[in-house]
């Protein structure tokens, strides 16, 4: 049976259908989860897609994290379900306290929309299990607030626990430690600023995102 991937849609989310399409192309069964629902339904994994939830007012993710669906997402994450935050979804997960650190304005104060080389730093996460350490991936970024920030203590902890899963080569936005993606201590919750769904088909210019999305499908199998 195909793994059911719930993709959360807030008002202002704009990457949910691309994400569903990319998951379906890999043999998953993507379905939209509405922010006002208080359950993740039959989902085996949850992806919080990119966009500008609630207009990014106050701070990106600050309002979205209080949506009814987020209570269910937090509970599912705590139960070990793979939960992935892409771009705005990463910001939502840090605001919700599911991931350490925060995303602030890019160092150059510019919105960056470009192809970006990434390096896989750890394969021990629900987003990178199908990849190889050191693997280089060409995946687009599209953000204004993607500059990952955390305290020195948190950074040391992330390094000691192998929680940095993806880094930028080179660093486009000033992120501490070149961090492009991190996971939680349980390794099932992962956030990343790049958009793997936008590198999921030759027509888009790269299929490098598929190894990450495939990892999510594999993680569902591993968890069941």
């Amino acid at each position: 049976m195909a793994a059911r991937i719930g993709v959360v849609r807030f008002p202002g989310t704009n990457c949910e259908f691309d994400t569903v399409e990319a998951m379906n192309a890999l043999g998953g069964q993507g379905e939209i989860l509405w922010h006002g629902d208080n359950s993740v339904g039959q989902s085996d994994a949850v992806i919080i897609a990119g966009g500008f939830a609630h207009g990014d007012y106050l701070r990106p993710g600050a309002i979205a994290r209080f949506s009814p669906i987020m209570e269910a997402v937090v509970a599912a994450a705590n139960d070990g379900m793979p939960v992935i935050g892409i771009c705005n979804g990463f910001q939502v997960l840090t605001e919700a306290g599911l991931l350490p650190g925060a995303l602030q304005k890019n160092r150059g104060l510019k919105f960056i929309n470009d192809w970006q080389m990434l390096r896989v730093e750890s394969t021990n996460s629900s987003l990178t299990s199908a990849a190889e350490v050191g693997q280089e991936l060409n995946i687009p970024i599209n953000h204004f607030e993607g500059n990952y920030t955390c305290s020195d203590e948190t950074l040391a902890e992330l390094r000691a626990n192998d929680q940095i899963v993806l880094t930028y080569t080179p660093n486009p936005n000033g992120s501490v430690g070149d961090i492009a993606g991190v996971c939680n201590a349980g390794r099932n919750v992962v956030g990343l600023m790049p958009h793997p769904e936008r590198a999921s088909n030759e027509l888009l210019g790269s299929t490098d995102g598929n190894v990450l999305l495939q990892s999510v499908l594999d993680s569902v199998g591993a968890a069941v």
Partner: protein
Amino acid sequence: MKFHAVIDVQLHPGIADPQGSTIERALPTLGFDGMSNVRAGKSIHLDIEAADAATAEAQLAEVCEKFLTNPVIEDAKISVVEVAGAN
């Protein structure tokens, strides 16, 4: 009693502030010299009903912690003034 609150939100002193740095770099090019340590935050103004100023401040500290700031990177300074003429 009704109070008017001003909440000053700033990045923690140790956190890089790209907006503040950009403003700082722009100042001398516009002929404004001798200005340094620019930090750019935001202020949130609101009215609040509470029994007294201490209660208002306590409630605001809670809302800052949970919602108005991200404590990972931001600090809030809260000031409360009684609105004259309100009950």
